[in-house]
């Protein structure tokens, strides 16, 4: 299948920037999918969106949309939708005229454009606010209108540049539901920039992890979390447990002891990684220890809302494990940590 978006060796240098903002980025986004571009600030993720949109020119490389090279096409001719972090609704136009803007710019009459805009306003559940001025909207409503405005232009791809990061948690949750509904109804191709891992998990099928202008990994949500391509990806995805050791004959040897790992693990030095959310913890030293279980001692416990995070010592290693809030654990307790083989992954070092 032809990629909806294909980046080929995209490089971007800014004059006042020593290291390039992007170096040799290759990325393919399949039609109808949603990919989250995840990375710390300054990693170049917004620059990728702006280059696809045509608002920045790449210093090198090509951009293909649906197989067509658009590297030299003006932004307004690319038929790309972009929703910015700030809604940027036109202050001199009403809500409906904002949504109708693309059709008006394409030369349609005011009435035609408004008629075509209405379904999109309905889709974002603001159908009855069309005649309002944009100044009267709340932050969440503004961003809904911005999304409707971008969709009404019927773009071949939709780019979202941290569109919900200025909203509070409740509104953000509502916007995620809205985005999922839009995906169900219109199945647009979406590339979304975010620095919020949870957001990426909720709305996207795939995650592209970016740091220092380099694409570190582009894979399904699950694989990026559990099968990081590098320790950098593991760290950026919030992986807390990294145990260095050596793989010999399908077994990882480290301060934890000998832990059997997947056959695909390369022989030689490698770091064992696993998600603190996926590991299990049971009180007491189960004996005999079941498969994938290790005896541990609780070092510290930190509560966070209804969850708690335990730091436990196994052998010479300290590990992080997430524990249900209902479980009583205190420092000094003897516990057993469960590490099923399918949650373990070895990154060659």
């Amino acid at each position: 299948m032809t990629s909806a978006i294909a980046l080929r060796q995209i490089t971007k240098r800014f004059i006042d920037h020593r290291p390039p903002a992007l170096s040799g980025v290759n990325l393919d986004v399949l039609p109808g999918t949603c990919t989250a571009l995840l990375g710390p600030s300054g990693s170049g993720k917004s620059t990728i969106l702006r280059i696809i949109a045509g608002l920045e020119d790449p210093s090198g490389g090509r951009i293909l949309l649906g197989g067509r090279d658009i590297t030299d096409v003006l932004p307004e001719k690319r038929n790309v939708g972009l929703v910015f972090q700030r809604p940027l609704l036109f202050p001199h136009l009403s809500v409906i005229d904002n949504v109708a803007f693309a059709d008006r710019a394409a030369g349609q009459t005011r009435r035609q454009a408004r008629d075509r805009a209405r379904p999109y306003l309905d889709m974002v559940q603001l159908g009855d606010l069309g005649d309002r001025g944009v100044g009267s909207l709340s932050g969440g409503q503004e961003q809904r209108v911005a999304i409707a405005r971008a969709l009404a232009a019927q773009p071949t791809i939709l780019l979202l540049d941290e569109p919900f990061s200025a909203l509070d948690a409740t509104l953000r949750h509502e916007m995620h539901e809205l985005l999922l509904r839009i995906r169900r109804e219109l199945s647009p191709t979406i590339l979304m920039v975010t620095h919020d891992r949870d957001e990426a998990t909720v709305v996207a099928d795939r995650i592209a992890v970016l740091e220092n202008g380099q694409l570190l990994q582009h894979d399904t949500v699950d694989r990026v979390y559990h099968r990081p391509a590098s320790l950098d990806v593991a760290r950026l995805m919030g992986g807390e447990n990294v145990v260095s050791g050596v793989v010999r004959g399908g077994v990882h040897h480290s301060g934890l002891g000998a832990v059997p790992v997947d056959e695909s693990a390369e022989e030689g030095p490698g770091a064992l990684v696993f998600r603190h959310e996926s590991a299990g913890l049971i009180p007491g030293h189960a004996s005999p220890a079941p498969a994938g279980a290790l005896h541990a001692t609780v070092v510290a416990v930190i509560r966070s809302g209804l969850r708690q995070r335990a730091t436990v010592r196994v052998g010479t290693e300290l590990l992080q494990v997430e524990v249900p809030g209902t479980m009583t654990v205190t420092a000094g307790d003897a516990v057993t940590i469960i590490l099923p083989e399918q949650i373990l992954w070895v990154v060659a070092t």
Partner: protein
Amino acid sequence: MGSRGKRGMANPNPDPVNRLRGARLLLIVGMIPVVVVVVGGLGSTILQSIGLMPLVGPVRLSVDAYVSTAPALLSSIGTSLWIAAASTAVAIVLGATTAFVVVSGGRLGRIVGAIGAVTVSVPHLIGAATMGLLLADSGVLPRLLGIDATAWPALVAGPWWVAVIAEYAWKESAFIALVVAGTLLTRVAQFDEPAAMLGASRGARLRMVFLPLAAPALIVSATIVFIYTLGSYEVAWLLGRTYPEPLAVMAIRLFNDVSLSSRTESAAIAVLTVAISLAAVAVAAVAMRRSAVWR
């Protein structure tokens, strides 16, 4: 002793109300020049024009000055309105275009902005002098274009006041561009990208985003330009013809005239010019109310 002691213990945080009172007082003192010119100057012009403030002779209320200047005044008003309207129209079109180019950014946009700022800083009299050197029938432009002096139209001191209008349009288009671009640079530039992403071409963005958002600043600066060009003296005096005279030229000539009645006539012209200016302000206020859909 007592007072020194008090000063020694000066309150580190003086009463904010007192501080504000001081600032207010300073501001009122600072307003004196404005009050002298606006209230005093305008008031004395009106009084002079109706004979209540004569240079010499008895104080006598009359509208003689208005009546005696009336015949010449009509053609003067026409001339001044033509110069002001034509200059303002050209300045609006070129000024708005310049602002759009500057706001759109890029290296050329920055160069246009810089050279526009230089133009604003050129005194009008100097602008008139250089326009004369450029547009006269032996000027630099006919030389550059290789047109003979006899074939060159009378732009300086000609029937259509072309050199005068060109000077005003030149300086004031830069002024309008500066005001519009200055007040809008950040606010409008941010809407340029979303508009482009929605498929609006450069022309559509100018028409659908830039102009509506620039309208208030455009109206204000255009009104200032209209009033300035309506009553400006030196450019029309240097580059214009001797008859018909624009309002300012006629008023200054009468002001410097030796005959006694001419001072009152000069004041009458000034009052009429102010009246036209205030009418322009009123029109602008209505236009503002219609266009001020955003702030």
